[in-house]
């Protein structure tokens, strides 16, 4: 390993390692968020949808269930988009 290699190496643009690091940081954060989510969420979403459908007809996309963890706090966020009018039985 010569001195020349060092100058050449350091002078070159950042190299692929920094790209790898950035990709991994995003990926791992995403994986962890998915992992920490309680396993009952999909079922919860389905059942809520079924209940709502008794009164108003909405489709699967109208109900979104979000789970977030902020420190020691767990936030379960339900978002239901009701149709503007009609759909009432």
């Amino acid at each position, binding site marked *: 390993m010569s001195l020349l290699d060092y100058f050449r190496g350091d002078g070159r643009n950042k190299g692929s390692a920094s790209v*790898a690091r950035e990709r*991994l940081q995003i990926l*791992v954060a995403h994986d962890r968020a998915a992992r920490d989510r309680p396993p009952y969420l999909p079922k919860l979403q389905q059942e809520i949808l079924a209940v709502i459908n008794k009164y108003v007809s909405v489709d699967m996309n109208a109900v979104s269930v979000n789970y977030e963890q902020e420190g020691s706090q767990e936030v379960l966020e339900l978002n239901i988009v009701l149709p503007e009018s009609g759909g009432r039985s």
Partner: protein
Amino acid sequence: MGKTTTAAAMAMGLAQRGHRTAVVDFDVGLRNLDLIMGCERRVVYDFVNVINGEANLNQALIRDKRCDNLYVLPASQTRDKEALSVDGVGKVLEDLGKLHDYVVCDSPAGIEHGATMAMYFADDAVVVTNPEVSSVRDSDRMLGILASKSRRAENNAEPIREHLLLTRYVPERVARGEMLSVEDVQEILSLKLLGVVPDSQAVLNASNAGIPVILDQASDAGQAYSDMVSRYLGEELPVRFLEVGKKGLLSRFFGG
């Protein structure tokens, strides 16, 4: 890459320091630990035989010829992975624990049955990672499983102690920005660093010969594994082999 090499080296290192040690191959169907340990021709009974009651533990354990404190429990070559039942594995590990100070479990790759069995009963876990994106990601997934699907997690006991071992490290490529650095990997996985093993011809030489690389104390990898075992046992040692051009004073000066 490097799990079996690491299991063999770690077991040998612990045994050499006077601890009664057993190393168990959990890779049912693709056993290789016996080959790395150089005892492949002495395998008579295996892990699954013991679980099924076809042999007792003493019949299946192979005593290492180089170190009296070390025993190898080989995996089965033929049977299907489901042969490792939770109760069966638990019983064998419990029996091994009575006879040994340390039981090293060599986990297969992936997140399937063999791997989950290898970690289910663990007290400590050494996550062997290469400085490479897919390996780091897989390690993070393993950490997730360690945290949720172990006996300790199920019993709400103290969690498994997790350690990071980075293998196949090439300082030259890190210096050129072509390889994730040990700091990068540690930051992403936020794990306690147990050691860094440089990418070394010695590892291949050792596995070719069936000698755990830790016995090759002239090599960088052998020394790195020794350091790792010492650290595992509580010694504080600086991490070696991270810098380029160990000999060149000038290059170290400029390499910073």
